[in-house]
């Protein structure tokens, strides 16, 4: 285990060390004090444990690495993640996993607004609640919410799937409740197990696109 103390090392030194890590290498990062752009652009299967709160864009564009944040995360957590796994034990701010293409993001606490905005294949599991406009223009992947969802969930959603256990304050334009079929239960069960969440799949409801905004239709003009 290599320890990197951000009281002594710079952000550049941290990222350089993590980006140069080989598969299986283990790192612990301490004294983060909300710094930005920590553990970004990793490309190998390294294990990184970050102890403390982090600022913007932690784990940005992650590929393959397994990153655990023991604390809260600032805006843009795991933005554009491609693969690997990121886990936050606390809460996450706005735009978690924005535009992320793959991998798994687990937020044990709450996630603020626009969680999963324009998500493109990532799977996101939130232990608590999510804020408004989450999964806005979500293209693919799954957003699992074990608590409640805020206003305008899944507005202008494409082919992403949303599973919510609690209440949904309101659905966004073109987002509707959909039937929970066996394949969805199986998919959800897998994500819950992977995320170490113990809820039963029967407690969730599924939401997705009504596909009415896919091509311009004058009769849908009120939705634009």
């Amino acid at each position, binding site marked *: 285990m290599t320890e990197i103390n951000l009281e002594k090392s710079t952000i550049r030194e941290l990222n350089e060390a993590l980006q140069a890590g080989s598969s299986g290498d283990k790192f612990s990062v301490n004294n983060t004090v909300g710094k930005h752009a920590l553990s970004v*652009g990793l490309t190998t299967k390294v294990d990184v444990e970050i102890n403390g709160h982090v600022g*913007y864009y932690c784990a940005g*564009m992650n590929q393959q690495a397994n990153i655990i944040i023991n604390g809260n995360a600032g805006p843009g957590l795991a933005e554009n993640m491609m693969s690997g796994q990121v886990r936050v034990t606390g809460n996450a701010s706005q735009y978690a996993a924005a535009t992320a293409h793959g991998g798994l993001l687990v937020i044990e606490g709450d996630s603020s607004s626009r969680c999963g905005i324009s998500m*493109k*294949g990532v799977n996101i599991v939130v232990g608590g609640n999510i804020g408004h406009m989450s999964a806005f223009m979500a293209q693919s992947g799954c957003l699992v919410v074990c608590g409640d969802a805020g206003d305008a969930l899944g507005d202008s959603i494409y082919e992403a799937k949303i599973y919510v256990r609690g209440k949904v304050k309101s659905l966004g334009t073109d987002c509707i409740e959909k039937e929970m079929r066996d394949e969805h239960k199986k998919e959800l069960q897998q994500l819950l197990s992977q995320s170490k969440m113990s809820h039963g799949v029967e407690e969730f409801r599924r939401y997705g696109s009504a596909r009415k905004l896919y091509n311009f239709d004058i009769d849908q003009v009120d939705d634009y």
Partner: protein
Amino acid sequence: MSKDNPTLIESATFPRHVIAEIQRAAKTGIYDIRGFGAKRDIPTFDDLVFLGASTSRYPLEGYREKCTTEVILGNITIAGMSFGSLSAQAKESLGRGATIAGTSTTTGDGGMTPEERGHSKTLVYQYLPSRYGMNPDDLRKADAIEIVLGQGAKPGGGGMLLGQKISPRVAQMRNLPEGIDQRSACRHPDWTGPDDLEIKIQELREITNWEKPIYVKVGATRVFYDVTLAVKAGADVVVVDGMQGGTAATQDVFIEHVGIPTLPAVRMAVEALQEMDMHRKVQLIVSGGIRSGADVAKALALGADAVSIGTAALIALGDQSPEFDDEYKEIGSAAGFWDDYQAGNDPAGITTQDPELAKRLDPILGGRRLANYINVLTLELQTLARACGKSHVHNLEPEDMVALTMEAAAMAGVPLAGTNWIPGKGGI
């Protein structure tokens, strides 16, 4: 007044094209979507002229006395245009042409194609709000990164790629269903202002080992403030795109009614850089309606470091060619008028995803044409610089020009010809 019947007077308020648009809107219920760029008459670089050397200054000899054009980025770069709006062959042609001419080309919404990377010696990777095809591997393969905040044709608006151009390959790259109307976001999904932009630039630099120059591109509106904020956020290069800048598709009302012309935008950007003592330290690229070496020379004389071309590059490849006039007519247009880039049925095979049409553009020939065109612009630029007695094109300065109209004098900040009057700045 009609040529054939002098008693017929056309309304200045409701000329025929306005009437046609009202009728079209009433029939279809949707605003007009089109490509190309602004068509209205606005002050341009044509409203400026150079004061060639005479008694008070002496010129340099053409072809004999050196007039250097060398700049780090190239004087004339190729603007970002997406694979999706353009065919793979067109993107390859742009890469080939730019490489022969020794300049850079730029990706666009939808990501980087192997054809484009393979044929572009210097490739700038656009980082756009939609993040379609955004991939950190491609980011690292690029030679520079351009964060797009806006575009001259539609400042404040996002991209648009209608269903007919969402082919299987485009859909796969953008992670969208085939055939849907794709509307790109108008703002970035993971920040909300210039302070956040500074952190975003830090993240991009950390991911790319602090090796890639970072450009920030803005559509010309509040240019002074936007350039100031981009520089303060850490941009190495600022790209300012005037309202004549082209687009693959957007609402006509956006193209014609949002943003300011390139002419004042250059001056405002230079003033912002000068006020921060960053002129010539942060590079300024200007785009939007650049067509000739004269346009390039005037942009540089106002203080730009380089220009970028988009629409003109497509015309150099063969867009609007009279060769296809019959086919343009079949689709209700004519060579020189065609602007339905969104339709995907481009007879020249450039703004299309139809494999049969796309085959019409030979990327090797297209690349050669583009390189020839860029070389002509460069020769014209040198001609004008020498005439003003300059041994480097960057030695051109506002003092070398006067304006032919009061509007252009005010916008460009150069005197009206025959006076030393700059509107808003005194003089007689």
